[in-house]
Structures are given as C-alpha cells and as structure tokens.
C-alpha cells in the first residue's frame, strides 16, 4: 500500500501539474520555434503576444458572461477563444505589415529583426496594460475540480489524495488536439509542406514556386492561434497577469532551444522537458521516501535538491548545459 501511496503522491504533486504546465509552455515554444524556422529571428514578443490573445479572450468571456451565455461545467473562456484568436491574428498581421515586412524585404540580419521584436514587445505590453491593467485577473468559471483529494481518498482508501483540476484536463486535451492538427497540417498538407521547405532552404523553396508571402502569413496566423490558446490555458489554470506572461517568455525560449529551435516537434517536447525538470528538481521528496523506506532510516530533512525559489533558474541551467554540449538542441534543430 505504501508504494501506491508514494506513486499517488508523485502523480499529485509532480506529474499532473508538470503535464499541464508543460503543455502550456509547449504551445508557446512551438510558435517561437516556427517563427524562428520560417521568419528566422528570435521573437521576443512571444510572452506578450500570449497575454494579448488572453486579454481579448477574457474580454469576450466577460461579454458572454454578461449576456448569460455559459458552457455549464466548462469555462466560458472556451467559446471566447476563437474570438480572441481572430483579434490576435488581425493584430499580428497588421504588425507584420507595418513593422516586420520592411526588414524582410531589406533582408536585414536576424539580430535587427530580434531588436524590432523588442520594439513590438514594448508596444504590445503597453496595449495590454492600457486596456486591461496590470492586475491579476481570474476568469475561470464552471466546475473547478474533476477529482477532489477527499473523494479520491474515499474511493481508493489511500492516505494520499489525488486532485485533478478541470483546467488541467482541458489543457491536456486542447493541447493534444491543437498539436495533432498542427503536425498534420505541417506534414500532410501542401501549404504545410511548403512551409517546411521554406524553413529548410529559402532559395530552393522560392525557386520551386512557393509564395513567400503566403508562407509568412500562415506562420503568423499559426503563431497567433497557438499564442492565444496557450495563453488562455495558462490563464485558466493559474491566473492572468501581464507581468507573469512576460516572464513566461524565458522558459518558453528555454523550451524552444532545448528542443532544438526551428524544429516544432522538438519544441513541443522541450516544453515538457523544462516543466518536468523545474518541478522534479524543486520538489521536496521527504514524504515520498517516508512511504518507501522502512521506519528506521526515514529521512528527517526535506530532501529537496533546490529550493522552489530556483524554479526558473533550473530551466535556464538546463538550457546552458544543452547549449554547451548539444547546441542544436536535444532533437536536432537548426545548427547555430
């Protein structure tokens, strides 16, 4: 019985949270990686684009709530997401037209484009804060838990409870659906293939008649969709605060690079690598070993590798190690 308890403990405190956090990171990392592969620059607006999409989803959610529309047990935000996506797509396309396209035609070096994306980062951040303010917002409604700790204990008779929040399940499902559609699109459709061709070798792709404008536009649209969905899922699971979203840019970048930047599938796995390592390293294993070990050698310290304050630092250290030993990422992305 103790073994089962120990496993449930790990499931509850490590596996389930890391899986949902990892999915949210993965969605961000995929679009950063796509933009890097196709537009060829580091997109520093990533976190703020997510907060932009989330903000509009929240505004639509409030609007629907005021109309009395709801999804019952599901959060209302799910119906608001498509509307948030439309606004975000519009925003990124306008931004591309006004700002990025100029540098693309001039064939500016990637660093220049990265700098420009810092400019748009400032602007996006300002827009978000001016419209919705810098404060913490919760917009979750519907059923909060699928499985409560007490219910689980009663059901199984174990000491340890397992809590599953509905947002975690929603996150996982939505991520699976979105990511499978995305990979189907990239691997099977003509447009997707042309995008990959463009990412691999721009000149060759242009020679074979691929329309760069279309490729760029589709990339931005995918970025907007993923940013809005990822951001909204994160906001549903935790809460919406522009500053946190800006900070999330850092683990997203770490995930994209660890997975191999320019390689969307690597980025997808990179999100989980980052999330799991952050939580695994900062979890205190004391209780886990109390269950496993005989009483005589029970540990009395917390058995925590690093204090939770270093959560972010863990993922960044992984990044540094990966950069040192395998600069193209774990799953072979673009060579540096």
């Amino acid at each position, binding site marked *: 019985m103790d073994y089962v308890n120990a496993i449930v403990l790990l499931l509850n405190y490590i596996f389930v949270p890391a899986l949902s956090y990892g999915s949210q990171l993965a969605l961000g990392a995929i679009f950063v990686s796509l933009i890097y592969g196709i537009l060829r620059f580091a997109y520093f607006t990533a976190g703020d684009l997510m907060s932009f999409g989330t903000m509009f989803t929240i505004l639509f959610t409030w609007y629907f709530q005021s109309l009395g529309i709801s999804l019952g047990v599901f959060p209302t935000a799910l119906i608001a997401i498509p509307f948030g996506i439309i606004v975000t797509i519009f925003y990124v396309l306008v931004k591309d037209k006004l700002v990025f396209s100029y540098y693309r035609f001039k064939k500016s070096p990637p660093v*220049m484009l990265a*700098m420009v994306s810092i400019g*748009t980062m400032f602007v996006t951040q300002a827009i978000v804060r*001016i419209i919705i*303010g810098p404060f913490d917002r919760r917009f979750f409604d519907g059923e909060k838990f699928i499985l409560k700790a007490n219910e689980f204990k009663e059901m199984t008779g174990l000491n340890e409870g397992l809590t599953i929040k509905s947002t975690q399940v929603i996150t996982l499902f939505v991520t699976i659906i979105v990511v499978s559609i995305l990979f189907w699109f990239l691997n099977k459709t003509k447009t997707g293939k042309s995008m990959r061709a463009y990412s691999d070798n721009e000149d060759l792709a242009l020679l074979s008649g691929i329309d760069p404008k279309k490729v760029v536009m589709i990339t931005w649209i995918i970025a907007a969709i993923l940013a809005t969905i990822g951001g909204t899922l994160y906001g549903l699971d935790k809460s919406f605060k522009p500053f946190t979203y800006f900070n999330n840019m*850092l683990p997203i970048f770490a995930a994209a690079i660890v997975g191999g930047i320019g390689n969307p599938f690597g980025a997808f796995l990179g999100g989980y690598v980052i999330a799991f390592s952050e939580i695994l390293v900062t979890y205190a294993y004391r209780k886990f070993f109390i269950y496993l070990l005989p009483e005589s050698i029970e540990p009395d310290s917390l058995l925590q590798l690093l204090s939770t*304050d270093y959560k972010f*630092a863990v993922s960044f250290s992984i990044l540094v190690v990966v950069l040192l030993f395998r600069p193209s990422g774990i799953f072979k992305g673009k060579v540096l």
Partner: protein
Amino acid sequence: MRQNLDVIIAYIIMLGLIILVGFFQSWSIALSILCFCLISAVMTMGANIQWGYAGLINFGIMGYTALGGLAAVLVSVPPVKEAWQVGGLNMIFSVILIALMVFSIRFIVKNYKKSKKRNYGIALVIIVGLILLRLISGPAIESIEAVNPATTGFLGGMGLPILFSWIVGAFFAGALAYIIGKIALGLRADYLAIATLLISEIVIAVIKHEDWLSRGVKNVIGLKRPVPYEIDLQAKEWFINLVAKFNQGTLSLITDSLEKEQMLKQLVIEGSTVFVKLCFAGLFSIVVIILLIITQKALYSPWGRMMRAIRDNEEAANAMGKNVVKQHLLIFVLGSAIVGIAGAMMVTYDGLFTPGSYRPMRYTFLIWVMVIVGGSGNNFGAVLGGFAVWFLWIEAAPIALFLINFFTSGLAENNEFKLHLIESIPYFRFLMMGIGLLLIMRYRPKGILPEKIKHV
C-alpha cells in the same frame, strides 16, 4: 568643430530639457533625472562597447547591474561579527570547495581524452562536491541567517567607503562576464541574446534567495553615502549662509524676521536635497567623463580599428591573424565591467539594495533601447541615448497626461473612457519607448548620432 556640430546641438537640447524640468517642476526632480541619466549613460556605454564596437549582443545587462549593486553592499556594510563567528569558517570552506571542484574538473578535462569514463568522472566530482557543499554550508547558512534576522541575518561586508565598490563592482561583473563569455560567446547572435538573458535571470535568482550573502528580498537599507547627509547639512553654519546668499532676493522681500527665519529654514531643507544631488551628479559626471575619454581613445586606437574590422568581417579579421575569440571575450568582459560600475553607482545613489526590483524590462531592454536610439558604435551617441531615453521614461507620464487631456478635451470630465486612460498613464511610457524604438530603427537605423569612422 563643424563635424561635431550635431553632437553639440544634441547635448545642448538635452541639457536644456533637463533645465526646463528644473524650472517647471522642481530642481530636485531635475537633478535626480540628471543623476539617473548619468547612470544610464554608463550602462549604455558598456552595452555600446559590446554591440557597437564588436557586434556582440548582450541581454544580460540586468545581471551585471545587480552584481554591481551587490558589490556596493559587500564593500560598504560593516561586517556582522556574530554571523562570521557562527558560520564564517564553513562559508570559507565552501568557497575553497567550489574552487577545488572547478580546478579538478579542469584538470580532468585537460589531462584525459574525451571518453565516457571522463564524463562519469566529471559527473562524480560534481555530485560529490555538491553533497559536500550542502553538508558544509547548510547548517552554516541556517545559523548565519538566524543571527538577528530583522536587521542583519547575513555576513555583512567589509565596512569600507562605498566608493570602492564602483571598482569592485566592475571586477564582479567582469568575472561573471568571463564565465558567461566562455560558455556562450561561440553562439550565433540571437542565441547569445537569449542565453545571456536567461543567465542574468539565474544571477538575479541567486542574489534574491541567498540570504546569507545579500539578505535577499529582505533588502539592505541605509548604505553609507559618499556625500553629506541632508540632516547634517541643515545644521551646518556655512551651508545656511550659502543658502541665504543664494536667496538674498526672496529673503530681502520679507520684512517680518520670524517669517524670514521660517522661509530660510524651508529654503535650507530644499537646498540640502539639491546640494546632495548635485554632489552625486558631480561624482557621476566624473565617471562618465573618464569613461568617455577612455572609450574614445580606445575606439580610435589600433585596437579599436581591429575591433571594428572583426565586427564588420569576422572571417577576414581572422584571416589577418587576429584572435577573434579572445578579442570577443575581452570586449565582453570590459563592457560588462562598465555596466557593473553603473550598478554600484545606482545602489550608492539609492542608498539601498533591493534584489526584487531587478527586472529585465527596466534593466536590460530599456538599456538596449538607449543604445539603439543613441547610436550604436558612437560613445557620444550612447551617452545621449541614455539621457534622452531616461528623460522620456520619467517624463512620459506628464506628457501622456497632457496628450490625453488634449485629445479628450471634448469629452466630459467624468467620461469613463477618459478616466480609464488617465488611470493607465504609467503604461504609456512602454508605448512611447516601443514606438520610439520602432521609428528610430526604421527611419534612422544608426541612431540619433550615427557612428563616425575617421579614416586616417
């Protein structure tokens, strides 16, 4: 003279703007803007050396700034004897242990060929080292942090005058830059940007959470100043006389002696803050001027020409026998050291060290806006960028308020839209920075004062 006309005009406009603030708002505000402009200018010069001279992109400015600040704490705070007694020895042992670990790894890497065995050896050294480190430092840290936690709870510093920290800060930042450079400088430009950004976050995390070293988020307050305190000044005879002399006009208008005394007291209090800030501004100006002279000399020296050659065509410079890797590392360390000085200066000015306040938006991206706006590769441009952008950053709120009132003047006073806009005034500075950066990058990509290359 003529070719420097744009520089002179730009600086005169900038100083004029600050003086205008003095007349319209207050001299105290104007001087504190000036002080922060000078500090920003130093940071910008550091970033400019890396970006403008060598084309290295460093998004870790925040980390070096924070290390400079830490230096200020470690130099100026008097040592906490009790903490040293309970845990000092263990901490020294820990430092020795870390050094031993580093050297033994170096030894293994140097003397054995690349193989699985070597990797296991390195892993073993690291794991054993970390466990030992935990055993030695763990209890020591606990006991150090238990010493009078409300006021100290850390090891303290050396108790030296804080001005030394400006040099120590440079060394700290330089040492960090050396490590980062060794790790990350081989990366392509935008990877380097991301890597440095993330490493600077690690540095902040360490400073924030290692309470025994820096008190962490509990902040260190009341650092000693290199200039007189307002309270002391207000009691000094010569200072009161000085203030009276400056304000003879206003004072002579008042006939009642009691009122006159009150007025004088008020003026002395105001004058003392202005005087203190003037002292700071003077100190900072000295640093800026010294750095400007050195960097200008370096830029037009053979070394500067070599750096430009490396920046413009790495392969060609390499083919000419220049050691590109070494020069990149050198300039990375030098630039970061300058940023470290700025970090120490800032903590000196504030008189407090708040690790929680180091945020990438303010200390990395804003500095980069300064570099780009000012003109990369041109030291005068970098200083001007520091001035102009900081000025805008501070004065954005009043400007935004004015603009909002102007454009919404047709709306009623309690119009909800107008009130919402006025509430969100602080965020208009982000908008201004972003649009400013985008406009400059589009229409004047070399900055306000572009780089000038003298051909000999």
